[in-house]
């Protein structure tokens, strides 16, 4: 049921494996035909117009089809051959027609130096993506796509190249396109699996808050859809909603308690199910000079991250995950949109596995981390405690003792939080990579290659100056743009920057009072 079975491993001939070489920046010029792959599959002649797969409009219309068929059926059941039924039928016909028309008018052309998307439904538009700007090619296949042997190809070309998607082409064509678009000039070694999710890791899902809440999000959107659909068909009236409300209020307490317990039990189970849906058989492998992450049960998603743009990793966890020794691994990629989702390298894995993968992708995680001076502890404490205390004081002044005492409790709880935030502060470098760590409820440890740094920023507030502290920001053209080593000793901040990039910093150091030691 997954892509790899019918994918490149099965028929290597169809997939030109290439590596990225540093020199491959200089891509073939316009008009230059990419060399034949030398393994049987030749590229189409430049300028060949290609259409999406003919079955595309079937998939495209499937969603509307299901919704509209359901609506039409409901309409038929409730009101017989009512207006709603004809309305739904018309909608169905128009939708199908639209999908057929957009299939017929959309073509894509692969040239030696660019790929063009042409649309001619209403007005003409040509979108062109230069091939040397292409940073990643993702292949996604939802359930209907997979049933029909189709896949969606998403091409990402960073900020200056734009993006485009082919929805949808055949599986083989998708793999061929990825091979061709990411192909560079030398044959690549066969792909190598870097990491693969194990069965028992799925139970880590409830540890992360996001997956615990997804069932609610799903239920909410389902209810919303049902309501809208019912509303459109006139099924929802004021009385019915009111009756439902009365019914809910009138439920016996025991039943409510039982339902609550049921939901509480269901939450972790649901979170594991949702997690499994998204992250089934999460596999990271290496090919074509890219790191490819594949995941998903129903919709199988594959994201290629170009290796030379992968400048670091991020290890994130929360206190529960820390207690279980679990962490999430993400990639820092230059010029990748939606990096939080697409740069994911491991959803939840034992720390040792995550660190091994990190080492394979960018290099060893530097360690052990150097703790920050004790003066930083006071700052973390004050920062954690001050907001609830402030609100408590305001609430007291405003005569709201309840709010004030609630904030008081929060302030007490903030003490261990502040202490832990201090404990988590740290930095380290091993001569090739810099690592900084901060945060408690969401702890992040970032590892960045020295070569990815684009500058240093040192910030000292008045309070920091009095304590001899400074915050050092390593500016990086990937991820968040910069990562902070919060509250380092002032001279350590300068020394760290100077140690990592002596050429940038040493010219601006104070000359020691007496030369030589």
């Amino acid at each position, binding site marked *: 049921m997954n892509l790899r079975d019918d994918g490149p491993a099965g028929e290597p001939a169809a997939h030109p494996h290439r590596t990225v070489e540093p020199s491959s920046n200089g891509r073939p010029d316009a008009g230059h035909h990419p060399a034949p792959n030398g393994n049987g599959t030749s590229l189409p002649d430049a300028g060949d117009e290609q259409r999406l797969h003919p079955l595309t409009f079937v998939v495209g219309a499937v969603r509307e089809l299901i919704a509209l068929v359901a609506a039409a059926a409901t309409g038929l059941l409730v009101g017989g051959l009512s207006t709603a039924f004809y309305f739904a039928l018309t909608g169905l016909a128009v939708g199908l027609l639209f999908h057929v028309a957009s299939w017929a008018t959309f073509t894509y052309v692969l040239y030696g130096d660019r790929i063009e998307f042409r649309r001619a439904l209403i007005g003409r538009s040509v979108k062109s993506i230069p091939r040397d700007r292409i940073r990643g090619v993702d292949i996604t296949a939802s359930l209907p796509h997979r049933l029909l042997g189709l896949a969606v190809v998403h091409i990402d070309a960073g900020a200056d190249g734009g993006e485009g998607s082919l929805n949808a082409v055949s599986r083989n064509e998708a793999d061929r396109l990825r091979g061709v678009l990411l192909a560079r000039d030398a044959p690549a070694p066969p792909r190598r699996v870097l990491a693969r999710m194990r069965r028992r890791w799925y139970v880590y899902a409830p540890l992360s808050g996001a997956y615990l809440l997804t069932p609610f999000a799903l239920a909410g959107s389902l209810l919303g859809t049902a309501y809208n659909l019912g509303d459109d068909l006139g099924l929802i009236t004021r009385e019915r909603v009111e009756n439902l409300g009365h019914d809910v209020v009138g439920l016996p307490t025991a039943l409510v308690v039982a339902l609550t317990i049921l939901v509480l039990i269901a939450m972790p189970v649901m979170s594991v199910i949702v997690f499994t849906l998204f992250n089934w058989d999460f596999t990271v492998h290496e090919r074509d000079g890219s790191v490819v992450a594949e995941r998903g049960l129903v919709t199988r998603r594959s994201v290629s991250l170009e290796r030379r743009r992968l*400048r670091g990793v991020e290890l994130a966890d929360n206190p529960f995950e820390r207690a279980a020794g679990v962490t999430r691994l993400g990639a820092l990629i230059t010029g990748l949109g939606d990096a939080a989702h697409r740069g994911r390298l491991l959803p939840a894995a034992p720390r040792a596995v995550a660190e091994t993968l990190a080492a394979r992708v960018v290099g060893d995680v530097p360690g052990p981390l150097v703790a920050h001076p004790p003066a930083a502890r006071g700052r973390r404490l004050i920062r954690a405690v001050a907001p609830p205390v402030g609100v408590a004081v305001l609430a007291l002044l405003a005569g709201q003792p309840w709010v004030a005492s609630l904030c008081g409790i929060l302030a007490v709880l903030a003490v261990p939080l502040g202490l832990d935030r201090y404990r988590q502060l740290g930095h380290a470098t091993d001569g090739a990579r810099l690592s900084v760590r901060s945060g408690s409820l969401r702890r992040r440890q970032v590892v960045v290659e020295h*070569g990815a740094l684009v*500058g*240093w920023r040192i*910030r000292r507030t008045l309070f920091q100056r009095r304590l001899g502290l400074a915050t050092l920001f390593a500016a990086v*053209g990937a991820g968040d743009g910069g990562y902070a080593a919060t509250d380092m000793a002032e001279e350590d901040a300068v020394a760290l920057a100077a140690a990592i990039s002596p050429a940038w910093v040493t*010219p*601006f150091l*104070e000359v020691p009072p007496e030369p030589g*030691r």
Partner: protein
Amino acid sequence: MRRGHHRDGGESHPPRLRPPEHRVSRRAIAHWAIEYLLLWGLAFGLAVGVAAWVGDSGWSGMPGWLAGRIGWLPYVVGAAGLLMVTVAPVWRYRVHRWEVSADVVYTRTGWFSREWLLVPVGRIQTVDTEQGWIERMLGLATIEVNTASHVGSSEVSGLPVDVATRLAEDLAHRAHDLRDDAT
């Protein structure tokens, strides 16, 4: 823990950054003062309005001790504004410094909190000069040095126009020659 790690390599003095070499133009003080004056003038006007409105409406939504003293609001805002207009620009002038060495742009900005920024010329993507209307009046310009990261992008305001223009051109040329923007 403070000094106890190997990275210092046995250096006997703690490394410290020296201030960048050049100050910005003195006219920058006037520029910042005008900016603060406009901003705090507006805040003062609002404060007067709020105080008058609350006093008239007899609104009971706030505790009595505050309602009785609402007339103080404009004075508090006015005093803070006066302090900002007189102290902050001079303070900023004393802090703001810049220097461009062979391959690094080094700036120090801020007043209450200070920031030192080191940007290698090779990592620069764009260099912009900008002039607001106050700056145009005073013959000043702001130069913006942008890298692939907003954290690593710096802004030097209060430079004389000719210096800013020359610097921007020079930086753009050298950035082009040395370009390796780490993306």
